[in-house]
């Protein structure tokens, strides 16, 4: 998908979430069609059963409805926002202890307060383009490592299996991939 198509999609998703905050059911159905099937895949990849994955995809969308009024497009892109919601529900589902709290999640949800951000806040779309471009400049292998580390239940084992490298090597490959990603994020395009 080209950058423009991506931007158009992100803009559309943003508009839908804003409309859902105003209880727009058609916009909700559109959001549902985009996100629920992908969130279900995310849950399956995390090792949850098909039924549980389906339930969590629906739970994620229910939370999207309930939280849409909290969504601030100046702070987060729509996909990152839904990813966070889905990720948190996945964490809760996989932690047996239901008292588990999502402190880490809340922190990342928290906006970067402007007083700690010295320069002008990059627009969310610009920031997301920067991340997208950094991901696009990773080698295929590194991109796959990053992908697996985000979504697999046992990322190390899965990286080892799908790249055919020994488990002992996975850690260093993962480290290199993430270091490279950081470098790309920090370097001008």
């Amino acid at each position, binding site marked *: 998908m080209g950058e423009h198509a991506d931007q158009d999609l992100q803009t559309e998703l943003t508009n839908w979430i804003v409309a859902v905050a105003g209880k727009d059911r058609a916009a909700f159905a559109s959001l549902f069609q985009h996100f629920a099937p992908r969130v279900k895949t995310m849950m399956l990849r995390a090792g949850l059963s098909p039924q549980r994955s389906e339930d969590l995809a*629906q739970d994620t969308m229910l939370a999207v409805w309930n939280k849409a009024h909290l969504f601030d497009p100046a702070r987060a892109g729509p996909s990152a926002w839904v990813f966070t919601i889905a990720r948190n529900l996945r964490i809760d589902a996989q932690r047996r202890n239901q008292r588990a709290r999502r402190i880490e999640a809340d922190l990342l949800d928290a906006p970067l307060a402007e007083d700690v951000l010295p320069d002008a806040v990059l627009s969310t779309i610009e920031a997301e383009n920067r991340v997208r471009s950094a*991901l696009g400049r990773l080698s295929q292998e590194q991109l796959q490592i990053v992908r697996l580390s985000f979504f697999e239940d046992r990322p190390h084992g899965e990286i080892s299996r799908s790249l055919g490298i020994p488990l002992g090597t996975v850690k260093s490959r993962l480290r290199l991939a993430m270091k490279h990603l950081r470098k790309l994020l920090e370097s001008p395009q």
Partner: protein
Amino acid sequence: MTISQHPTEETLAALAAGQLDEGRAVVVAAHIEMCLACRSLASDLVSAGGILLGELAPSEIARDAVARTLARIDRGEAAAEVLAKPAAALPPDLSMLPASVRPYPIGRWHWMGPGVYWRPIGVPREAGARVFLLKAAPGTNMPHHTHKGTELTLVLRGEFSHALGNFGPGDFDEADDSVEHQPIVSAGEECICLVAMEGRLQLLGWMGRILQPFVRI
């Protein structure tokens, strides 16, 4: 505050991806509270999660899924959510405690050795890391030790150093079982750290090793 020691990129990515156990997540999140650079990287990594989510192959969803979800909405169902309880008032000696730790029950200081105390933090754990505060008097030589599993240490106050560097407030020390070191607390100020350490037995073993030399005194 100048922070010079940070979590590794893969640890921040694991936090963003939701792949850290709660104990380690709390300590990494505490660092992020203090560190603008890591906060901004973690935020980029969450964006990466969103982008990669968008690239996942869609799975088939039940045909009536939207209708069922809308029905739940009409019933006024809230998503099952566990809200963090509001932080209780902190004792004055813990005013520096990061927000990520505050929702959890905080135990009492326990004597560990001369000048060294630890204080458990009740982060629910399954197989993950145990979280506690470690307080050491100025100039304390911590015994030489290695780690079983990873040990994450965030300095909240004071300063310590070991072979791999100096660690002041906000600095983050990430050690795995390949690391052998002997932290020394700087003179002048007591040092308080937030620690996540993997494994119940490992903790006992580690504490045993810490405790042993002192107990002989």
